[in-house]
């Protein structure tokens, strides 16, 4: 899976995610990527999110929209909301993976709870970062 989230000069957010699914998948199996609010979500009032991981668990936890709800209803900030979901809620149901997220002020958060992560970020206020875990 690959993904990107961005905040433009007008503060408009967007998210995009694309995947080849799972090796040897059968039965027309679909994961989280194409399901809005699960693997990909954007809302100017909260955040834009792109996810990667075991799709079945992301669907059970409705991960992307969950992050947005924690910001909207519980007033968590981007970092708090994304960490709550990836470090606490997802592992609780044995889910593994990670996400990238940006809010309308251009803050970025990229938590994960499993190995093999490829990430990059660039803002008008910070250095470019490319990292592999």
């Amino acid at each position, binding site marked *: 899976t690959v993904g*990107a989230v961005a*905040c*433009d000069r007008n503060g408009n957010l967007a998210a995009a995610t694309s995947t080849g699914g799972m090796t040897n998948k059968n039965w027309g199996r679909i994961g989280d990527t194409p*399901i809005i609010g699960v693997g990909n979500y954007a809302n100017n009032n909260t955040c834009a999110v792109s996810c990667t991981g075991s799709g079945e668990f992301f669907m059970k936890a409705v991960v992307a929209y969950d992050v947005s709800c924690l910001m909207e209803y519980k007033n968590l900030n981007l970092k708090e909301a994304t960490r709550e979901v990836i470090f606490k809620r997802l592992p609780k149901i044995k889910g593994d993976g990670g996400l990238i997220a940006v809010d309308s002020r251009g803050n970025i958060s990229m938590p994960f709870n499993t190995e093999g992560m490829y990430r990059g970020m660039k803002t008008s206020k910070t250095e470019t970062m490319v990292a592999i875990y």
Partner: protein
Amino acid sequence: SRISIAIHGGAGTLLKGEMTKEKEQAYRTVLRQALESGYEILEKKGSSLDAVEQAVVIMEDSPLFNAGKGSVFTASGKHEMDAAIMEGKNLNAGAVSLITGIKNPIVLARTVLEKSDHILLAGQGAMDFARLHGFDFKKPEYFYDEYRHEQWNKIKGTENFQLDHTSSKDDKFG
């Protein structure tokens, strides 16, 4: 507002110990290309929607990541892809699922967002929609990758399926 972009290349792909210096450099090069191409659109006052689409297209065109050209093999030896795109301004969204032969699934997802009254199109119907909107279809050879084929060979014919990472539960939080 501060312009920002973040990208990810999925979870996994190479098993522990397989990441050689050369491979790492190859991954970093594509990640940086994707990042810079998306950021350039933002710098030129372009939209976040254009920026995320462009960044994902760069990664879909690389065999290194499990999307587009680098998609993994299904149990029947095909490449079935999914993609979604969404803009925060008006909650418009477009998504496609179970599609084959499309070079850039994210571009098809964007076309669903812009040229249909739907959000999610799947399977043959999604491919008919692609054909209607002039998408050309790539032959299976375009999606063939030796490493992906080996990954598949190891579990072909079994009930097992594999995500792009070995899921280990001991806390790899970061």
